[in-house]
């Protein structure tokens, strides 16, 4: 046990590291970033807290407090479980320290135990930032006693462990079964399919829940009671944790702990049997050893401009590195598939509403002003989603890792290198945002008689928003780049961007739901407003672009 904890502390130190690269730095940028993140987090925490209070009020009237707590913890466990599978594959198998650890005198249980602690560490972000405020809000609303608060603390500590143990077991079985595919590249495809599958499952469940809105709340509650009763056995610690908080049952503390310990024993037992077989040879990569043909030589040795060549190099690296692929590509490029597939499946099996929601929305829009307002919030939501949750720009420098010195040795100006890295991010985020929005525009214009002017406006505003956000993300990535990392996942840290996205998403949803209309405040025609708005966006984009180059070049010179 001591060896496991010692190893976990070393792995955590390696993956969290200070990342300090500039000895002459006067201000600790990391502290400023953390502070900024904390400030950004406050509104989210407040909203979650108020949601907790609101849920308590609503469900106490229906005597469904226990049920909602169960449902909440079950949902949190489910999210941790899904996220955990990728996290475990990454930590257990794709980490660059694997080959070093395998030759050291550690048992597979010690290695997996330590890596489990590292993976759990990241899951505690969900526990602290999401579950914590909700439970505290709920307890505050209830005027809860001491045992509730003890239960809350225990829940925050224990809840991620069981779903993560499941994730780790599934990850190990996947890697064991795929014994013939022992290389990171093939895992890329697997990761992609897994994530899309999980997203579809989530989306289908979401659609089913939306259908339940047709019936009365009591009926929904009955349905939920049955459903929660039926499925919470998947996470057997959840009823005990709820009993501590709501049922004030001290004995449940023991049961919860025993459940977690049992899960850990099973996990370590499975690890002992399957981990090494999946891990050995993981770092190997297949090679064809085929000589290039004369045509291939001709094609590959064609001269290109350095910015284009550098951009291609960046994109190829991202496409071929599983961690970057998952963080930078899948969601950004795959979101329409993820959103539309359940609809397509429902239509195919004849139970769907044949895209009636599109008609409902467009029928609702009768005036260009309303359409503009709706479009604005959708554009902001989609593009902030595609850029802020994409790791390309913020990790542009960190991805170089210890090969960063090559950036300094190449006879290519820093401005051109930054431009190439920015362009690579623009290609991905632009495709995910601007291109998809333009395609959606075409559909709505052709099929749903949307005015033609929406097309150029959508493209222009989307492009400006993507451009501004990518530049801002590049600047954030330059502030404290992380060049010494243990695994590629450490190069991609997007906590601040994630929180910023949640804030923008909340505002966008509220804007959409409430139809916040700027013309209520400014009495000008929507057309003048659109023109002025685009002009302002372009000016902002140009200014931020200049700032990015000025700061970026200076920063690279200093590093």
């Amino acid at each position: 046990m001591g060896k496991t904890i010692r190893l976990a502390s070393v792995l955590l130190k390696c993956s969290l590291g200070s990342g300090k690269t500039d000895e002459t730095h006067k201000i600790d940028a990391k502290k400023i970033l953390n502070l900024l993140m904390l400030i950004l987090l406050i509104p989210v925490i407040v909203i979650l807290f108020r949601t907790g209070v609101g849920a308590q009020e609503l469900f106490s009237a229906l005597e469904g407090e226990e049920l909602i707590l169960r449902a909440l913890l079950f949902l949190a466990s489910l999210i941790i479980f899904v996220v955990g599978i990728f996290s475990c594959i990454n930590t257990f198998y794709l980490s660059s320290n694997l080959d070093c650890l395998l030759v050291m005198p550690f048992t597979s249980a010690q290695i997996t135990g330590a890596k489990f602690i590292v993976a759990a560490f990241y899951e505690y972000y969900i526990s602290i930032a999401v579950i914590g405020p909700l439970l505290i809000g709920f307890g505050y609303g209830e005027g809860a006693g001491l045992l509730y608060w003890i239960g809350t603390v225990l829940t925050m500590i224990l809840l991620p462990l069981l779903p993560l143990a499941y994730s780790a077991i599934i990850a190990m079985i996947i890697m064991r079964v795929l014994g013939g595919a022992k290389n990171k590249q093939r895992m890329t495809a697997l990761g992609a399919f897994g994530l899309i599958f999980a997203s579809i499952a989530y989306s289908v469940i979401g659609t089913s829940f939306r259908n339940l809105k047709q019936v009365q709340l009591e009926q929904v509650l009955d349905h939920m009671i049955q459903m929660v009763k039926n499925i919470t056995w998947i996470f057997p610690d959840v009823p005990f944790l709820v009993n501590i908080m709501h049922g004030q049952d001290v004995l449940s503390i023991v049961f919860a702990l025993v459940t977690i310990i049992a899960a850990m024993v099973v996990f370590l037992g499975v690890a002992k049997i399957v981990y090494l077989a999946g891990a050995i040879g993981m770092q190997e990569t297949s090679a064809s050893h085929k000589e290039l043909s004369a045509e291939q030589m001709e094609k590959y040795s064609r001269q290109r401009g350095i910015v284009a060549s550098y951009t291609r190099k960046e994109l190829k690296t991202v496409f071929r590195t599983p961690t970057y692929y998952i963080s930078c590509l899948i969601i950004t490029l795959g979101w329409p598939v993820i959103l539309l597939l359940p609809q397509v499946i429902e239509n195919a099996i004849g139970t769907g509403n044949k895209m009636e929601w599109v008609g409902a929305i467009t029928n609702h829009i009768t005036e260009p002003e309303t359409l503009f307002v709706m479009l604005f919030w959708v554009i902001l939501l989609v593009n902030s989603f595609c850029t802020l949750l994409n790791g390309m720009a913020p990790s542009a420098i960190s991805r170089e890792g210890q090969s960063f010195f090559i950036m300094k040795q190449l006879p290519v100006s820093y401005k051109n290198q930054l431009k190439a890295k920015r362009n690579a991010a623009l290609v991905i985020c632009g495709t995910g945002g601007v291109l998809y929005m333009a395609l959606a525009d075409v559909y709505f214009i052709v099929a749903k008689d949307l005015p033609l002017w929406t097309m150029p406006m959508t493209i222009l505003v989307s492009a400006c928003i993507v451009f501004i956000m990518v530049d801002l993300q590049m600047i954030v990535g330059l502030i404290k780049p992380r060049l010494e990392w243990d695994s590629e996942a450490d190069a991609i840290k997007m906590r601040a961007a994630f929180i910023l996205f949640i804030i923008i998403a909340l505002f966008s949803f509220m804007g959409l739901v409430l139809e916040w209309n700027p013309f209520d405040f400014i009495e000008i025609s929507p057309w003048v407003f659109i023109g002025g708005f685009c002009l302002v966006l372009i000016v902002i984009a140009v200014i931020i672009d200049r700032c990015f180059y000025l700061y970026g070049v200076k920063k690279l010179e200093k590093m």
Partner: protein
Amino acid sequence: MITINQVTKKFGKDKIAVNNTTWTVPDGAITGFIGPNGAGKSTTLKMVTGVLKPDEGSIQINDADITKNPLKAKMQFGFVSDTPDNFLHLTGMEYLNFMGDAYKVPGKVRKEFIESYGKRFGIEKSLGDKILSYSHGMRQKVMIMGALIHSPSVWILDEPMTGLDPQASHELKLMMKEHAASGKSVLFSTHVLEVAEKLCDNVVIIRKGEIKFLGSLDELKAKFPAETSLENIFLELTGDGKDN
């Protein structure tokens, strides 16, 4: 030619990594850069190649100052690092092509270079594979090719023989000799004194950031007539070698 003029580099307030060194790497010669771990070799090479800026002094690559005119200076040299684990997700061919674009090498020239050096190093069948799949030695070979793709007049190599098989090592030594014989300069760092003894026209020995010896091997041996081997002379000059 590399001219290092009164160069000093400090880390923090107290740690002097390189202390007011002045020396040159002449054209038409192979210069070996030798010193124990932590003596200041890597720091010096990083300053020469533009990764670090000297606190004092200047460095010229041919006629270009690496600090004042970095892009021109960087076009003059090819650098082979001691860590070949770079660009791992590109194929060998993609990496070489990227380097060709970075150094503005015309397509026809780079194609001829890749074909010729690929055969010379025996990696022509692996250029279509990812560098990640290469052995350490193969990675080193492709990095050497990338560094030399623009036919630089100055070669700077940091422990270039590490991981190379005897054939490739022999080939590289031959290339270094040919390059120097054509009137151009080679600077390489090594810990293997036998290699330095057989290959170098000049040696520079550094210890604790200061140049302890600079000159030809004959001059070095003449300075220490009592010592029978380069190893003994090296130990005499660098003390116990525990500089770090």
